[in-house]
């Protein structure tokens, strides 16, 4: 990453090309913060200095007839600028905010976001909040008198690493921020922006919605088969999981076939389980980036996601995942009852009638943004990879089975906002850097006219690009290409298993045995060979191998080179820097242990865990279905945020791994509890 100009490429869609020193510093490391006021010094230190001017939050009459403001973050935020409706667009690649007049489709202004913007949201007093994923802070902008809608930076608020999602409570008293890598939900007093509390969350939180009564926050997770619900009232703000695993309902003939297969499986002893597993097959869930909630009927949270069937890890398979012909991943929209915090069972069922490819086009395997149109009672979801905007019946108990319409949009749709009053959806396509305005229609006549020219596209301005950009842009598209037979035969994209270039936490059945998905972003440089079995001497070779196992036809030439370039340059997760002296001293002690001859961690994983020895070792971890005893030494970079661990994901935590591996992979039994804590903390910090 140390270059004349810095590249940061996020799997999620961030292709940040920042000039060194521009926008306040480098990428990914959370350093180089701007000199702007970081924390408000008093109750009103971040309040507006120019009240009553500039853009105001978009409102539209809700079901009760009362104008409502959108209280959920997005990469597209609508506002009123005089009589015009404008869109504020968060451009991750350039680190800017674009202002586009939706009437004239002219770009009115572009201003610096101060980093890599995630979601944005307008507050009750029309300030614009922007999460900066690479800066561990939320930037606060204030409208000005400018007729272009440009805003100026007012202050910023520190958060846990990689802030992404934003939301506000219905009373506008509390602002909420999720931090992806920092796995936290931060609650801020909307008045003075002081922190109210911070709740620890499971891995990779993304979007937030607040319950209608303001008592709870629902948080989507990109990985982990669950969403979180956090109580906002009272003193306890612990996150509770809402499991979102799904199940296939198999047709009887398939169920019988599966039972026969399982009965033949002498290793698994599945004869006992066969009957129970025959009618329903469990699927984990993944790709929880977006959330929305219904308006009519109210009380339901809608969670676009993907249901994953990763195969029976007790038996080697012919590829990655099950080989029974069913798609490994299918789209889904989970419906959660706000009252009981439980999902509608029907929303998590994959009917036997839809396990074949979706009848109406490519399946939405990389859902990235969602919004509800209360005027119509429908849910809009943007799908990266298939590059579509899909409309579902939001009132259905099974929205994914009630697709109403879909539109093709420009590449990389990562944001959507609904202009209820004008009957249009505004979609931001990050990869093409295009704003799509989709006419939804409000009557039959408009519906018909909309069908002929439903999508108007406008390319936004950009900072000067470099020659490499084209290759990286192509690589990013290929990384996210779903339903591309060159990548896989069942629609899976690279980003299906590596959301944001990281891992899906899933252990897949493979020809070699169970294999836990590794993190890619920031972990490939200097860590060859690749794959747990160490069979990929370089990234290109390993990719070719991966296409085969996904039963894809493969990529060649410039396309393969571009994909390799993108994967190897993806922005690493942001590092967390210890600030307290106690933390620093503990990390120093942990480092001593890590590099000591007794613990012997560094003897294989290298200095700071970042330069593995490139060898395979037998660490007594072979499982019953593994075809080998020894495994490639992995890099430990970012290991703290990539649980579970080992090639088969057998260890849920670093502590469990350290303790269980004693004597097989280094030694820790001689360590005092405080030293073991220090070692764990150090490894977590790598």
């Amino acid at each position, binding site marked *: 990453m140390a270059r004349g100009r810095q590249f940061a490429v996020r799997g999620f869609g961030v292709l940040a090309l920042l000039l060194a020193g521009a926008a306040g510093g480098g990428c990914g490391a959370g350093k180089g913060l701007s000199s702007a006021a970081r924390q408000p010094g008093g109750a009103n230190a971040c309040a507006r200095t120019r009240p009553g001017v500039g853009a105001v939050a978009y409102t539209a009459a809700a079901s009760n007839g009362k104008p409502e403001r959108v209280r959920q973050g997005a990469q597209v935020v609508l506002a009123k600028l005089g009589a015009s409706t404008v869109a504020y667009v968060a451009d991750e690649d350039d680190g800017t905010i674009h202002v586009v007049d939706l009437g004239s489709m002219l770009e009115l202004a572009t201003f610096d976001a101060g980093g890599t913007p995630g979601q944005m949201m307008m507050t009750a007093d029309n300030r614009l909040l922007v999460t900066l994923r690479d800066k561990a802070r939320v930037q606060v902008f204030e409208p000005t008198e400018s007729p272009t809608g440009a805003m100026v930076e007012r202050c910023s608020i520190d958060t846990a690493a990689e802030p992404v999602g934003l939301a506000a409570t219905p009373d506008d008293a509390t602002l909420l921020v999720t931090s992806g890598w920092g796995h936290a939900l931060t609650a801020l007093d909307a008045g003075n922006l002081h922190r109210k509390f911070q709740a620890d969350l499971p891995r990779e939180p993304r979007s937030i919605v607040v319950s209608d009564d303001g008592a709870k926050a629902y948080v989507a997770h990109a990985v982990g088969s669950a969403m979180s619900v956090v109580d906002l009232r009272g003193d306890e703000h612990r996150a509770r999981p809402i499991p979102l695993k799904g199940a296939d309902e198999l047709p009887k003939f398939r169920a019988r076939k599966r039972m026969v297969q399982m009965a033949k499986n002498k290793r698994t002893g599945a004869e006992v389980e066969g009957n129970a597993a025959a009618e329903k097959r469990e699927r984990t869930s993944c790709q929880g980036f977006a959330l929305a909630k219904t308006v009519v009927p109210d*009380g339901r949270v809608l969670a676009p996601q993907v249901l994953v069937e990763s195969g029976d890890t007790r038996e080697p398979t012919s590829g990655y995942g099950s080989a029974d012909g069913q798609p490994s991943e299918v789209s889904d929209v989970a419906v959660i009852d706000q*009252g009981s915090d439980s999902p509608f069972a029907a929303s998590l069922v994959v009917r036997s009638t839809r396990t074949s490819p979706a009848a109406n086009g490519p399946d939405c395997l990389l859902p990235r943004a969602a919004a509800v149109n209360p005027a119509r009672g429908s849910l809009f979801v943007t799908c990266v990879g298939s590059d579509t905007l899909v409309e579902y019946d939001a009132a*259905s*108990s099974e929205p994914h089975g009630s697709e109403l*319409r879909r539109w093709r949009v420009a590449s990389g749709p990562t944001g959507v906002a609904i202009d209820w009053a004008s009957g249009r959806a505004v979609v931001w396509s990050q990869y093409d850097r295009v704003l799509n305005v989709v006419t*939804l229609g409000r009557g039959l006549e408009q519906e018909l006219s909309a069908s002929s020219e439903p999508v108007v596209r406008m390319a936004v301005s950009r900072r000067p690009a470099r020659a490499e950009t084209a290759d990286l842009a192509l690589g990013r598209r290929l990384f996210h290409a779903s339903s591309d037979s060159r990548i896989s035969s069942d629609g899976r994209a690279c980003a299906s298993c590596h959301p944001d270039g990281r891992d899906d936490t899933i252990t897949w059945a493979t020809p070699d045995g169970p294999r836990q998905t590794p993190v890619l972003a920031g972990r490939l440089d200097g860590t060859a060979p690749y794959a747990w079995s160490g069979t990929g001497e370089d990234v290109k070779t390993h990719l070719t191998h991966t296409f085969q196992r996904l039963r894809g036809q493969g990529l060649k030439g410039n396309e393969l080179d571009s994909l390799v370039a993108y994967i190897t340059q993806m922005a690493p997760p942001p590092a967390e820097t210890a600030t307290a002296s106690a933390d620093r001293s503990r990390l120093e002690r942990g480092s001593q242990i890590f590099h000591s001859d007794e613990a012997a961690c560094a003897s294989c994983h290298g200095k700071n865990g970042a330069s593995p020895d490139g060898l395979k070792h037998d660490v007594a971890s072979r499982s019953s279905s593994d075809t080998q005893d020894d495994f490639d030494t992995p890099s430990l970079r970012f290991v703290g945020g990539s649980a579970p661990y080992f090639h088969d994901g057998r260890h849920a935590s670093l502590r469990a791994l350290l303790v269980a591996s004693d004597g097989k992979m280094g030694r820790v039994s001689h360590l005092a509890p405080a030293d073991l804590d220090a070692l764990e903390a150090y490894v977590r910090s790598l």
Partner: protein
Amino acid sequence: MGRALFVLVVASGVSMAGVASGSDAAAPPGSLERASLSAIPAASPNAYAPAKSVKPPARIPAKETAAGIRVDAQTSPAPQLRITSEPDAAGATACLGLNVAMWPLFDDVQLSPQNPVTFVRVERLIEQNGNAILTLEDVFIDPRTRGARSLGITSTALKPVAAFAADAGERVYAYRDDASVHLVWRTTKQVRWHDARGASASANCGHGHLVLDAKDTNGPKSSVLAMSSSSVTGWSGKPALRQYRLTASLSKSSHDSEPILSVAVADSREPGDAQAFLGGVMSSNGNLMPVP
């Protein structure tokens, strides 16, 4: 559930042209209408003993007949009886089924001459002057004598809840009974659908009939995948069949005081266009088959 009120939520696809909102007037597509399901008529109380609660007679004399029901003998390919209905005044035939609870509907029913007395339900969707009713007639057929005995006939007023813009703009109607919400719609020829449990059924008579279980409302949902036989020109220039889809769900969250019925209609504006729906028919295993 009894006769508890429902809230009706109707969302539409590109072609929906009508929703229930307390009147029969079609609301514009793209709108969201809510109405108490009490606006949807309850099934008329049976004026006769339901067939399922009546013990079939051992024998029905040959001379006994049921009006509008024909029992014809066929010899090819094998000896059998073919049960059909007489066309009504508009020329529409009825849909026949062998089971009250399930609705695999056909334009005829075939029975072996050796069968004992068999129950047949006969449904007729009658649309007239903007109104619609569904008549239900339960008939016992004795294949050995070709005798037929009607247990009674009842008619239920239907409420239009949605419509397709494609083809002739067929409407989707609804009524309810104690245990279910019924959706009925005119179809030109053949439909196939899948219920909430993945079972598939089909009809090749004049209408489709979908039943939503109203007892279990924590997420049950039925869906229909159907095909009309209208011949239109596809993108390839070859004749293609327009495929449409009707989905319906009945659900109740803890916020809802009563179950929510949601009906969505979508069809292919451009037959054969993969952006909308693939031109094809849904096979019994759920896979799309190419249009011949």
